[in-house]
């Protein structure tokens, strides 16, 4: 059942461009708030660069901590875009329409944020350039492509470039609408960005084909990115809990879980902030929750298998590591919190239609999932390193410092601020997708009842 009003094109333009053509009162304050955190983050990063990584909690033997955890977390969130946009586009899921743009956008900004973390983590960030670009031509020295630290920028760079282009191509028709609704410098800007879009059958045809073709191309990239991120850990022999063949699919499905949950969070915020009740409706949350039940269950299966197979070998160091990760404080507290937040509480709640249709409950359960998924990455990275060496006297622990907490807050503020800035200039819900839905949606009378029906062109 459609739970919103059917609008005409003028009304669709007016409602969906309310963020881009007008400045809501709250917008400036929200941007100011996040900008303050972002600036604070830059200052703290400056202090860290000046003083060195000693200001973090990183110390022997744990040299990968909150920064790398947050890097993996944001790469995971970035999987929202392609999961929602590409898979649902390819399967012609009608409910994807209001969701795709926000999901693609979340991909772009979370990837940008994720890419920042290896730089922050490097301590001497200018040295990052050695990883990616050839240096010291005199000696013919090049980056070592055998290192996963080279695979990461290759994969994430490809994903970021592809996602940005995907976002831009799908934005073209809406840029044409904005060009037609604006004057002055904005008209010139949208005119240039829309490249002279007119909306003739050739352009619409190409737009449809582009959506399918780019989706098909982005899907293998999407799978490769988190696989490669997982290989940062999985190709390292000698670290208990890391050297696992299951890591690539485990990370990918976990990324989808956290990414789709982040889209739910974002959709709820969009509905509340821009009052898009006619576009983001309870039926969309219901559909996303059903998808999440499947994804979360698959992810939980991988979690169980990962632990089960590590125990199956009955090797002493592996058993000792799992004992610490699951039963010893403080890891045990985090482990229970992680399982409750990422799976048991939200999935149990999503089984009920009343929860799936409640935007408030969907918002909070999606937040819970991402708390859990951050902890999952932390529990994979840190305990393994804490007991990396075989000798007890080399064991250690790790606690993030205030600097690391600030940089984590910076990452959330950076994504939020960029989303708000984007929303001030561009529509967060694709106008043409909403309008197309109106053209292809009708009502059918069967007997004494009327049901909504979606028409499809024959391929």
């Amino acid at each position, binding site marked *: 059942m459609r739970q919103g009003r059917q609008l*005409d*094109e*003028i009304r669709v*333009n007016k409602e969906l461009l309310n963020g881009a053509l007008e400045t809501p009162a709250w917008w400036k304050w929200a941007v100011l708030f996040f900008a303050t955190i972002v600036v604070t983050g830059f200052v703290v990063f400056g202090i860290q660069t000046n003083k060195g990584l000693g200001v973090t909690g990183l110390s022997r033997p744990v040299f990968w901590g909150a920064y790398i955890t947050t890097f993996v977390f944001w790469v995971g969130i970035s999987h929202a875009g392609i999961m929602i946009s590409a898979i649902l586009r390819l399967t012609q899921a009608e409910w994807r329409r209001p969701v795709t743009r926000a999901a693609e956008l979340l991909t772009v900004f979370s990837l940008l944020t994720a890419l920042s973390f290896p730089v922050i983590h490097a301590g001497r960030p200018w040295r990052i350039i050695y990883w990616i670009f*050839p240096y010291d031509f005199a000696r*013919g*020295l*090049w*980056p*070592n*492509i*055998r290192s996963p630290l080279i*695979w990461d920028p*290759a*994969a994430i*760079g*490809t994903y970021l*470039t*592809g996602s940005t*282009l*995907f976002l*831009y*191509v799908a934005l*073209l*028709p809406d840029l*044409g*609408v904005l060009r*037609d*609704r604006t004057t002055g410098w904005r008209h010139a800007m949208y*005119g240039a960005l829309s*490249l*002279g*879009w*007119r*909306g*003739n*059958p*050739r*352009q*619409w*045809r*190409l*737009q*449809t*084909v*582009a959506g399918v*073709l*780019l989706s098909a*191309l982005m899907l293998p*990239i999407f799978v*490769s990115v988190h696989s*490669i991120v997982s290989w940062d850990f999985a190709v390292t022999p000698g670290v208990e809990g890391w050297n696992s063949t299951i890591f690539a699919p485990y990370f990918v499905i976990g990324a989808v879980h956290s990414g789709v949950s982040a889209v739910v969070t974002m959709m709820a915020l969009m509905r509340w902030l821009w009052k898009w009740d006619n576009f983001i409706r309870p039926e969309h949350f219901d559909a996303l929750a059903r998808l999440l039940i499947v994804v979360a269950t698959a992810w939980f299966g991988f979690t169980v298998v990962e632990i089960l197979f590590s125990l199956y070998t009955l090797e002493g160091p592996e058993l000792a590591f799992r004992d610490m990760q699951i039963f010893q404080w403080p890891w045990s507290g985090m482990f229970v919190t992680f399982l409750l937040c990422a799976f048991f509480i939200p999935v149990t709640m999503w089984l009920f239609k009343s929860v799936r249709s409640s935007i408030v409950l969907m918002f909070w359960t999606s937040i819970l999932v991402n708390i859990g998924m951050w902890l999952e990455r932390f529990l994979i990275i840190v305990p393994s390193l804490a007991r990396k060496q075989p000798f007890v006297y080399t064991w250690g622990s790790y606690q993030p410092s205030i600097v690391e907490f600030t940089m984590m807050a910076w990452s959330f503020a950076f994504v939020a601020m960029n989303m708000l800035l984007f929303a001030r200039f561009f529509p967060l819900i694709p106008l*043409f997708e909403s*309008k*197309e839905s*109106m*053209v*292809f949606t009708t009502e059918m009378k069967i007997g004494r009842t009327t049901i909504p029906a979606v*028409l499809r*062109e024959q391929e």
Partner: protein
Amino acid sequence: MAKTSILGLYEDPEDGAKAMDALHAANMDPNDFDVLTGTPYPEGAFGEHVPQHRLFRFPVFGAMVGFTLAIVFTAATQLAWPIVTGGKPILAVPAMLIITYELTMLSAVVMTVIGILFESRLPNFNPGAYDTRITEGLIGVVVSVEEGRESEIEAILNNAGAMETKRA
């Protein structure tokens, strides 16, 4: 000969389709008229010829270029500073495959986007007659007409029910 662009605006898609039929009937070259909409309509809804494209060639070409460059890049960089690790070959094929895969896909995506723009005939900053109400739901039928036939074409557009015509 210089051509004039004439736009007819219609509220009802049916009238837009009638205008297209009338232009066909007047033996206009199909390349000289087009329908403009703010919404993607089903193909052939206005009796227009279904546009053909060669978009699928672009990603294939891009992938081939990316694959070649990636193989050259990964092989040449390893050979430029040979690191013998445990007596294994200098060229680490599994690692090369990962970088090659990513660069192949990157090049395929970039070429696809170039193909989309090329096949969509974008950028085009000289679009002829246009009306901003098209993105509010009106249907535009735009005709590129030789000098001297403007009145004839305007009459065709008006007879099909145009609420307004304009020249550019």
